[in-house]
């Protein structure tokens, strides 16, 4: 394992991927409606296919994370039809093997964090199946993006536990280094359908280490002290409760279970939910343990920076910077860390 291969360009890699399209669904980051995100390779326009190179190798992650490939925004797990009193359950679509080409270290790490929840007993089998059937090819970053803070959260922008690491040489040649059995098998398959040569792996960019890593337990302790701080009320004054942070956050994994039926057919599905919504904890009888926006906002940041540490020993943030980029009122993990005054974020 770990012997690298190279091909002359991203185009030649994508051409090889095309030949595996019968076996895998292949996704890569591109532009759609001026937003960066993962799209099926075989459904891309020529322009979108051209855009993959710049976005996959950008020094920041696409706007949408990879979490939806393992934990779709909506996932049906019971499908039924009814005839009188008789109910028949129908077969479900099976998740096809899939390749995610061009994920970033932060997102690879975020999936490892969700693993700690969904793969702990009782195992979430829907998630587990998608995990097993997905091969992640990650690209390395050469510098930190505007809102990036991955290194503070212990993520290396230039290395990850992805199945395959992908790097670009100075002539645009693409280097693939498998890191897992799944990755090794995929690289072998690519070699049989494309034009690859065995090579030494490209040196991984070295970051100078100037960024100091947050210590999970210290952040947790700071949060403990800030539970009754006025900071939550203050943030809640600007928060509009839109839930954008939770939908784009690669580690947010809260879900709802809902039923839908029409005439004689129906489904039960799970769907992303957001702890920022009033309905998240509102009970049918009317009681709500987190009735105010400040309660909900505080709970969200406590989950990331305190509860997850207590439960899993890790911060539930990978520093991808999406909340900083997307929150309409500028509330983010970094801004909260600043306000609660961590060692690294003296305000």
């Amino acid at each position, binding site marked *: 394992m770990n012997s690298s291969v190279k091909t002359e360009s991203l185009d030649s890699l994508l051409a090889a991927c095309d030949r595996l399209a019968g076996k895998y669904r292949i996704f890569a980051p591109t532009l759609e409606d001026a937003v960066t995100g993962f799209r099926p390779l075989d459904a891309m326009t020529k322009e979108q296919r051209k855009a993959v190179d710049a976005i996959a190798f950008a020094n920041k992650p696409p706007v949408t994370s990879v979490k939806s490939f393992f934990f779709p925004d909506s996932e049906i*797990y*019971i499908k*039924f039809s*009814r005839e009188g*009193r008789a*109910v028949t359950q129908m077969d479900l679509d099976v998740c096809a093997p899939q390749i995610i080409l061009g994920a970033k270290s932060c997102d690879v790490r975020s999936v490892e964090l969700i693993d700690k*929840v*969904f793969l702990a007993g*009782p*195992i*979430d*089998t*829907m998630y*587990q*199946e998608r995990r097993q059937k997905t091969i992640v090819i990650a690209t390395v970053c050469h510098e930190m993006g505007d809102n990036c803070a991955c290194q503070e959260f212990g993520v290396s922008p230039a290395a990850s536990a992805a199945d395959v690491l992908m790097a670009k040489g100075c002539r645009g040649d693409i280097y693939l280094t498998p890191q897992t059995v799944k990755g090794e098998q995929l690289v072998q398959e690519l070699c049989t359908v494309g034009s690859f040569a065995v090579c030494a792996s490209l040196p991984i960019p070295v970051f100078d280490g100037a960024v100091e890593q947050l210590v999970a337990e210290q952040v947790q302790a700071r949060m403990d002290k800030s*539970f009754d701080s006025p900071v939550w009320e203050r943030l809640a004054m600007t928060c509009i409760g839109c839930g954008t942070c939770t939908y784009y956050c690669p580690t947010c*994994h*809260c*879900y*709802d*279970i*809902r*039923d*839908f*039926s029409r005439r004689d057919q*129906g489904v*039960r599905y*799970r769907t992303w*939910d957001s*702890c920022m919504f009033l309905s*998240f*904890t*509102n*009970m*049918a*009888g*009317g*009681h709500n*343990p*987190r009735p105010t926006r400040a309660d909900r906002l505080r*709970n969200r940041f*406590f*989950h990331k920076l*305190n*509860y*997850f540490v*207590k*439960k899993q020993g890790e911060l539930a943030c990978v520093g991808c910077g999406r909340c900083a980029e997307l929150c309409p009122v500028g509330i983010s993990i970094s801004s909260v860390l600043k306000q609660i005054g961590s060692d690294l974020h003296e305000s």
Partner: protein
Amino acid sequence: MNPNPLLPVKGAVTNVICESRDVKTFQIKPENLFYHLPGQCAMLSLLGIGEALFSITSPPGRDYLEFSIKRVGKLTEALHQLGVGDEIGIRGPYGNGFPIEDLQGKNLLFIGGGIGLAPLRSLVQYAIDNRALYANKLHLVYGARSVEDLLFERDIRGEWPKERDVQVNLSVDVPHQDWDGFVGYVPQYLEQLPLDPENTVAVTCGPPIMIKYVLKTLEKLGFPPEQIVTTLEYKMKCGIGKCGRCNLDEYYVCKDGPVFYLSDLLKIKNDFCK
């Protein structure tokens, strides 16, 4: 591969008891009956309508499970339409249940409000079924909004008071011409009763506002937090500590609860005992 933990098994409704104008008790036989502890819960669902967590109100060891369900929303409204022979989805059991081993050899003070008697009933009946282990005094203080809202008539006024060393005190919030018992809220009633914390564990369940004041009253009456047990109710979806909504601090009520010692609740961030 393991089975999907979110998939329910089929169950059949085998009996329905009308408890009050908005509460019915459903006896259900699942295809694969599971053993449960008093205080544990299960997810009940109707395909196309929804799913929710309910406490199991029957004690362990029966060949059925009972759920007392108050009509408050879309799903419970639909559940109330069910009759004998109807099919229902069920999965569980979930949660930790009451600390039945800690309670052995103790005087037990059960404090219930409204539909909150449902989980307590499982424990009271379990203690009565196993009197050798729970030989001390069993005392139930139970209140409802009105005389018509008192649940489990057959137990609270029928079978239980006949048992040796079992005392039942009932209260209602509003007076009624046929009611000569206590009128007022449960915490007020507690203050009037001769209660001795010595070797006694208080176990409470009811609406959140009642729990909050019962906890305060018990402390005032000299019950240390280590002798107070409460079961909490949160909105839950998965039942297995993953969907993220029922957390109290780092704990999930569905998995780590719903039963907590007050002494443990006091250590964590929650809205019941601020």
